[in-house]
């Protein structure tokens, strides 16, 4: 067992996949708790689709994918946040419209330029092989920044997640913190998209938070559990994908699904025993 784990890490691409994956899962899990509780779950989904559209257009034009995707997704994050804050059904529908349009634009520009090749496929469904040394550097830098900002703003993030109205009354710059959450999510989604896939990355925002909430009932324990669950889920998924030769992104999502179902059962048992 230990030996085969050592063999797994001896492949440079696996070691890189673990570093990037664990860091992005941690960040998205932390941000995800607030996004899910604020009913912004769809923003993660929308961002990854916009990210895919931007990457596909950049590749068609021969530009560097991440250099285009990061600013485009940040702008999209800002727009999606404003639309979601509208509060009406129109806001909800607008997020769905933006997601599917961005996906369609991406697929269209890819097929018009080079056809749906393996690069496009790997952006849609993810690939462990996709991580280069510079991707690792970028994801480490982004994750450290996200984690630091999250810890420093933790109490305020709690306040705006729990009660925006009260937060405003106490002088908190609620819109500023909402934008910060959306921007941090945007950058992390773009960084993690290569490996997890544009269609699957939003599950890292939603699943760990939902799993943690089934069992824990204080904000701090939910945040910590969500981060741990996310990192463990990623490791199980990616190791399974290595040994069973299954797609990376899908394996991680299924690991998270199994964790969620387990936590739901545990949560239900705890409730009936109370």
């Amino acid at each position: 067992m230990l030996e085969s784990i050592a063999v797994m890490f001896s492949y440079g691409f696996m070691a890189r996949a673990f570093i990037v994956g664990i860091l992005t899962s941690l960040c998205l899990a932390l941000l995800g708790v607030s996004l899910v509780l604020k009913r912004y779950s769809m923003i993660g989904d929308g961002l990854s689709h916009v990210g895919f559209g931007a990457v596909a257009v950049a590749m068609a034009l021969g530009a560097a994918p991440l250099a285009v995707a990061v600013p485009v997704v940040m702008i999209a994050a800002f727009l999606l946040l404003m639309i979601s804050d509208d509060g009406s059904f129109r806001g909800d529908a607008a997020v769905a419209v933006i997601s599917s349009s961005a996906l369609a634009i991406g697929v269209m520009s890819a097929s018009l330029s080079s056809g749906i090749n393996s690069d496009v496929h790997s952006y849609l469904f993810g690939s462990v092989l996709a991580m280069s040394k510079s991707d690792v550097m970028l994801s480490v830098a982004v994750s450290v920044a996200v984690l630091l900002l999250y810890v420093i703003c933790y109490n305020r993030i709690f306040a705006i997640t729990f009660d925006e109205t009260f937060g405003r009354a106490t002088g908190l710059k609620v819109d500023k913190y909402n934008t910060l959450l959306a921007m941090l999510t945007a950058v992390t989604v773009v960084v993690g998209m290569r490996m997890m896939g544009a269609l699957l990355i939003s599950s890292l925002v939603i699943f760990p938070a939902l799993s943690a909430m089934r069992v824990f009932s204080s904000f701090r324990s939910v945040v910590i559990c969500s981060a741990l669950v996310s990192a463990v889920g990623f490791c199980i998924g990616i190791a399974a994908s290595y040994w069973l030769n299954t797609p990376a992104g899908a394996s991680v999502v299924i690991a998270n699904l199994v964790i969620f179902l387990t936590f739901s059962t545990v949560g239900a048992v705890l409730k009936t025993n109370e």
Partner: protein
Amino acid sequence: MPIIECKNLTMAYGSHIALRDLSFAIEAGDYLCIVGENGSGKSTLIKGLLGLQQPKEGKIILNGITHREIGYLPQQSMAQKDFPASVKEVVLSGCLSYKHRTPFYSADDKIKAAAALEKMGISDLEKRSFRALSGGQRQRVLMARALCAADRMLLLDEPAAALDPQASAELYALIGDLNKKEKMTIIMVSHDLDAAGKADKILHMANGCAYFGSTEQYYHSDVCHHLTGGGHHHHA
């Protein structure tokens, strides 16, 4: 000198005037109840008092108090009903109103939160989960949070909405104590004329001021009879 004074206050959303030419004053130690039908401008006035919306015309003058020193009890949102948070976390978040630079809570903040819980008679709930509490307990927790944010004035928005009669009676008793014993200024917005009977002064709004004065005289006024459909509500 009144602690809060509204002079010919007009507030609007774009071209829609929500309240027009409202004048009234609140003295330190007052217990004021603001009544009026839906759409009469109560919520807009709350935003004005909290400094979240600027007047279109007229003034809101604060004497010796800032907007942030008004402890606010908002109406509960649906999202809070299943929110994973401990009582302690919720109450401590009130302390953010005076913390501008420091990211973490200090020992003083924690003492303040514990004192607020004690005032609300819910020290035993500190470790409990907010989502597992009854409606009345939740309101007490949110009142404790408001007490952390402000120790001189509370602004309560429909505090007893959705509470059963016993829980609301207990809550009104607590609010009365804060006013009488702690000398806090209370501004309470309510639909409920029974609640208005607990206050010393009434502001009846109808996109402006329909009545402002003592509670006693209010029950003899035409405005009150209009709201209650001509029925008589006398309160001891």
